[in-house]
């Protein structure tokens, strides 16, 4: 009973601390220095280097979705709707969310481990004593980088997934590229694209802030680096899914299907 109570207290303490940590981001976000070069470097390290893994993931999402859906649609004589079905699924939901989850797995854990390692080796204290704000230099720059790079990755994954879908279709039925592109264009509209990609800004922010939070308050020496890394992935993935549900509901209120 006491153990359960302690876990509950710990959970709410984490939520409260994360909230304060996030609030501090908005307090210092507009203050100089802006560290544009550092942000660019993080965008390259955290984002560009993620392209290979999301390329594979994106292709497989589109490919498998088409393979799985095609027999079902064929049973109802609706296989012509396959490009429309896959593109709407990928653009509205699967592309953004799966990219964010992959991104969380790779980047949130990386940020958590890197900052935690700096914490336990006293590099953050050293920075603070050099009169440099470590929050601004380490956290704000990473959060801005993840927030800006994830939407780009998500758009890229959507395109790759649609290519994967086309490959799956031509394996069963010879179809021209023009016909496929036209079918996708007809199926998609502005209302599909903007909400799907917009929410990736929120997911990118979550990945950056959670990874930084877990690293910044790491304790327990080397063990703490592992804990920060793992818990950053778990918490950011969970928050991505929770925020996805909320944002989808809000999107449907603003743009009903």
């Amino acid at each position, binding site marked *: 009973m006491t153990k359960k109570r302690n876990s509950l207290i710990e959970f709410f303490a984490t939520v409260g601390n994360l909230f304060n940590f996030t609030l501090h981001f908005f307090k210092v976000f507009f203050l100089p*220095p802006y560290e544009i070069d550092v942000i660019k470097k993080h965008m390259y390290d955290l984002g560009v280097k993620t392209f290979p893994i999301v390329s594979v993931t994106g292709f497989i999402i589109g490919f498998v979705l088409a393979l799985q859906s095609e027999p079902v649609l064929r049973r109802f004589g609706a296989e012509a709707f396959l490009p429309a079905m896959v593109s709407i699924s990928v653009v509205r939901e699967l592309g953004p969310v799966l990219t964010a989850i992959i991104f969380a797995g790779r980047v949130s854990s990386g940020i958590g481990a*890197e900052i935690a*390692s*700096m914490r336990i*080796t*006293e*590099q953050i*204290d*050293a*920075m*603070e*004593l*050099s*009169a*440099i704000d470590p929050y601004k*230099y380490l956290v704000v720059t990473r959060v801005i980088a993840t927030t800006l790079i994830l939407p780009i990755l998500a758009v890229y994954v959507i395109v790759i997934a649609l290519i994967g879908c086309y490959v799956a279709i031509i394996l069963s039925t010879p179809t021209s590229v023009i016909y496929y592109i036209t079918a996708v264009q007809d199926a998609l509209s502005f209302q599909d694209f903007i909400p799907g990609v917009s929410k990736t800004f929120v997911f990118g922010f979550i990945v950056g802030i959670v990874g930084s939070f877990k690293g910044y308050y790491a304790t327990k020496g080397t063990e703490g680096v592992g804990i920060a890394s793992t818990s950053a992935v778990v918490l950011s993935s969970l928050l991505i899914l929770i925020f996805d549900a909320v944002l989808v509901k809000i999107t449907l209120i603003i743009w009903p299907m």
Partner: protein
Amino acid sequence: MANVIIQVKNVSKSFDDFVVLDNVSLDVYEKENLVIFGKSGTGKSVLLKCIVKLLTPDKGTISIFDKDVSKLKGKELIDVRKRISFLFQSAALYDAMSVRENLEFALKKVFKLEQKEINQRVEWALDSVGLLNAIDKMPSDLSGGMRKRVGLARAIITKPEIIFYDEPTTGLDPITTKEISLLIKKLQQELNITSVTITHDMICAKIIADRSIFLKDGKIIYNGDLNSLFNSKDEFLRNFFSFDVIN
């Protein structure tokens, strides 16, 4: 009599129920080299971290340059931190940056110096610690002694008035210990720096100390010159400094 540059008054600090500092009072004078002794876990590092505001004491007041540390924030805190340096036990070099970048970091971000002056200072600092040839190396490529030297170069590059050393020679062989200690002493004399050093190392203490204190169970039990401390009649202190390990 020199001016008091750091004043610690009745400072206490606990972690949960464990009292680390218990009503500690201490004055550090301008340009003196104070050495802090004590068994591991007796609050030496905590005292230093309270002085530089990495930790907040539960009770008591600390002032540096006549400024109450607990009330420092924003620009005032930055101004005080620009006048001090801290050499960590692990050297705490930024491992994603080269030696040059480690040294340039504060000069660029805080002191906003011209690149020409930054280059001059980097060369001077590395030359002072005898590591000019390591300028483009990464911290992971350096040995323990070299890391300490680079840490020392980073500490002096801002030309601070006070340097805090947290066990600057721990883990080093006796020759490197002597070299680093002599280097600390030489730099202090050349740059007129006040220093507060935590050490267990008697070679290091003998080279750099003007005065020493001994912390035991969160209290200062000795405050005076080093020779009297080494020749103390107190059984605990005699045991602490005894080389006789087989009795």
